[in-house]
């Protein structure tokens, strides 16, 4: 369950305040898939960052799985992310100095999970990269990197998966494979999925859509 109550974000730009997300309230029930859409600069990524606890709202409260995150310290937020939130980025953001297998392993090591090695291998197998685990990100294609990123997001079996334009940097065929994986995350694993996307094909798989324009929810 994700709950936002009167959440807004105002930043200072050129010396004057600029509201990039106006007070917003909504709830996303456990196991739902929600697509956040809108043109560039509408506040989509800001909203996703706030839900992930990567940024603090100017006003309002956010709670994830019953935990209010707006008052948590950076360290506690990091721990919470490690346990409850998996994130998939448009530019993959794998650690370049680690192999694909190690990239999947890292969140489990941080969380102190048991038997992380077998789980990392299983996750790589799930995303079709069982044979590519020993490769470094620079040796993988964009689609493969994104699949590793999805496996990494699922490493600690988080109840919430957030994805920021997951197909935005991929060709359509590779993008389709990624969409299928994300849909499976939601439908087969029952994870709450929040997608920020421009991709209509991806958005249509969502149970709900939140459309943003100029920092306001328009539908």
């Amino acid at each position, binding site marked *: 369950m994700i709950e936002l109550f009167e959440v807004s974000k105002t930043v200072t730009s050129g010396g004057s305040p600029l509201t990039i997300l106006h007070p917003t309230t909504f709830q996303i029930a456990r196991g739902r898939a929600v697509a956040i859409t809108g043109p560039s600069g509408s506040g989509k990524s800001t909203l996703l*960052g706030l839900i992930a606890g990567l940024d603090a709202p100017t006003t309002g409260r956010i709670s994830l799985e019953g935990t209010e995150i707006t008052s948590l310290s950076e360290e506690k937020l990091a721990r919470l992310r490690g346990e409850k939130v998996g994130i998939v980025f448009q530019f993959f*953001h794998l650690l370049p*100095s680690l192999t694909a297998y190690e990239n999947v392993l890292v969140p489990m*090591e*941080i969380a*102190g999970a048991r038997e992380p090695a077998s789980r990392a291998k299983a996750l790589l197998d799930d995303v079709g990269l069982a044979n590519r685990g020993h490769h470094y990100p620079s040796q993988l294609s964009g689609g493969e990197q994104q699949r590793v990123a999805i496996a990494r997001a699922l490493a600690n079996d988080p109840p919430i998966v957030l994805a920021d334009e997951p197909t935005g940097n991929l060709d359509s065929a590779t993008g389709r494979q990624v969409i299928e994986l994300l849909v499976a995350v939601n439908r087969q694993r029952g994870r709450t999925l929040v997608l920020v996307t421009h991709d209509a094909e991806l958005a249509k798989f969502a149970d709900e859509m939140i459309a943003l324009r100029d920092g306001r929810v328009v539908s």
Partner: protein
Amino acid sequence: MNVARDVRFVVRMAWRETRASWARLLFFFVCVAIGVAAIIVLRSVVQHVRITLTREARSLIGADLVVQSSRAWTADLRARLTTELGTSVLETSEVVETQTMAAAVEGRGTGTVRLVELRGVEARFPFYGAVELDGGKVYSHDLLRSGGALVQPEFLIEMGLQVGDELLMAGRRFTIRGVVTRDRVQRPGGGIAFGPRVYVDLADLRATSLLGFGSRATHAILTRVEDDNVEELASRLRRTFIRDSVVVRSWRGLEDRLGRNLTMAENDLSLVGFAIVVLGGIGVWSVTRVLVQQKIRSVAVLKCLGATSAQVLATYVLQVLTLAAAGGLLGLLLATVAAAAIPASMLKPFGVSSVGVTWSAALQGIAVGLLVSLLFALVPLMEVRRVKPLLLLRADTAMTARRRDWRSWLAGLATTAALALIAVWQAGSLQAGLYVSVGLVVMASGLFVASHLLVRFSRPLARSPRFAVRHAILSLSRPGNQTRVILMAVGVGCFFILAIRAVQANLIQELTVEIGQNSPDFILIDIQPDQVDGVTAAVTPYVRTSPRVLPLMRARVVGVEGRQTRLVNAEAVRQHGELTREYGLTYRNAIQNNERLIAGTFWSGPLTTAKTPDGFDTEVSIEKEVYDDAQVEVGDVMRFDVAGSVLSARVTSIREVTWDEAQNGGFIFVLRPGPAVQRTSHAFVGFLEVREDPAARVGFQRALVKSFPNVSAIDVREIVRAIREVVDNVTLGVTIVGIVMLTGGTLILIGAVAMTKFQRLYDAAIYRTLGASTRRLAAMVSVEYGVLGTLAGLLGAGGAGVLSWVLARYLFEIDWRPAPILLLGGVVLTAALVSVVGLISSADVLVRKPLGTLKGE
């Protein structure tokens, strides 16, 4: 539980990060390794020497206690000494050391005449340690009895003589009966040896004319005493004979002094290694800054995945520590190899045949390497705390500006304080450690400001019509280019080498000027008053100009009655600190060409009465130095102890001596001739300009040996050669330090190129797509590093020029001569070195295909 989890994660991540980037970081830690190696080698060598010498302290003075004087023992002094020594002395043995000319008898050897250090010994010499002879022969005083002599191997070679040949010294014939290969007993008088040592029986030495009045000899009584009261006895003797120009040395005192001095030397020398480690540390600081910039995204990802700032910080700290430990171990390896490679001939003078790395030195070196690396890396690593994971979603949230928070400032201050503490620890002294720390901070700040200014001044070149020059200058200001760090690192190495070379050039030029064409090249000493005319006549056929013979008396100041300075006796003079050394005094009636009168009036003729009108023995003219340092003025009265008799003199003038022109002698004190002065026992000294032909140089020495065996001729050129050797050795030592530093600087340069390679690859790919050829790219790189090298060279040469001026002006007190060719050569060589190293390190950038790079981006 959580701690164990965190530690596991940190260790694994550090290992992975190190695995990925060790090659890029290697150079910086090799630089640390060099400093660690320097600390380990220097400490190990000095520790070995200290252990050996302190163990052999008794052998070094050959006795438990030595009482010595530069004057012959008077009956009164002997009686008092015997009383004082009492029953605590088990046995005694006398030694006298002096210099004389040695020659082979006619028709034997090379015909060379040589000044030697003559050591006359009695039967029981030495009480401790052994005089080792060639061929396993055992030393015995019987070898010396009745005209026997023992010589050193180099003397035999130089003279072309063999054991069994005869030697002419002080008008007597001695037979060479053995060759001394090892002799630990030091010269009691200290100072530089004028020639090889020759052992004779003290009875034979006394039978010569060498110990006549005014001769330069050291008379020593070696004693063996009960071990438990040696220091107590030494202190009592020092107190008792304080007014008798007697020096008392004990083996315990020597052991303590050696231990203290060598510990101090070990600590001081290790600071050289510390400075090199700090240079490596600056490299570590610089590389860590770049590393953090390059790792921002990785840090953000880790934070997104749930890692805390502390975990990420610990990961990179552990990475630095791992590499520093590797650098330390490499340093240990380098030190082991270097210690084993030190030639035995270099160690022999210290009584050590070989050195190995000691545990304490190894631990200290590695600990310093680890600490310095950690401290320099810590401040830039603190930046990872400020990396926000949000930047993965919004690039505009990347680390905000370069603003530092209080934690960074605190870390910076703590780092500086910790470095100062390490310096104090290494120096073994709070004062020395703080001096070094302040010195390093001042030098680093100076270099930083100078490098900043140099880069700034080079900016107009960015408008050059030449493409390569324009872009090379722009590259110097590229973000993360580490220009200033490279300038500092290479500049420091260049600075050390050029500074010491410049100082050496100044010293040698000064010596060359002093020993110029018209300077005396031989000094005759110990000429007795009745020999002056004879010696002059004997040497006249061999000299270019008439010899100058001056009276010379050795004296100490034993009292001053002045307006500003009042020193009632010798003890007061000693406590005052100035005027304590033994001076060479002369007397004459006129001021010399190299002297200028600055106060009072110089007398115009000898004193004809027994006393001056105000009741003193004579008048004295003092050098400005006495006025400046001891505040003695015109009108004051000084008392001199000349060979045991006290001479009082009113100061009537102050002179300033131009020491550069003092080839014929410069004197601090000049007395007015008169009956009292003439009565004091004194000898004469002669200055000769001998003809250049070898026959004249050997002939005059032979003539002297034959007719005036007590007179010694000191070859000034040999002294210059000896001084030059010392200067050369010091220069070599400092040059090695400079080369090590330059190597460190070069490694930092290579490392900097490696660290910024990704940016360079991208830039090169863009240039290539815009039509730049490999040749043009190579030209850009060459010019960039050429300019960098030139700036580093200018920094080093500028610093070297300033330092050589300061040392020449204030330490050596000589005229400073700029060494433009040396400094210019240094700049050109540094530019060439940096250019070539930069070009080679960038080879990959020049040959890489652009498409691969651009796709990678």
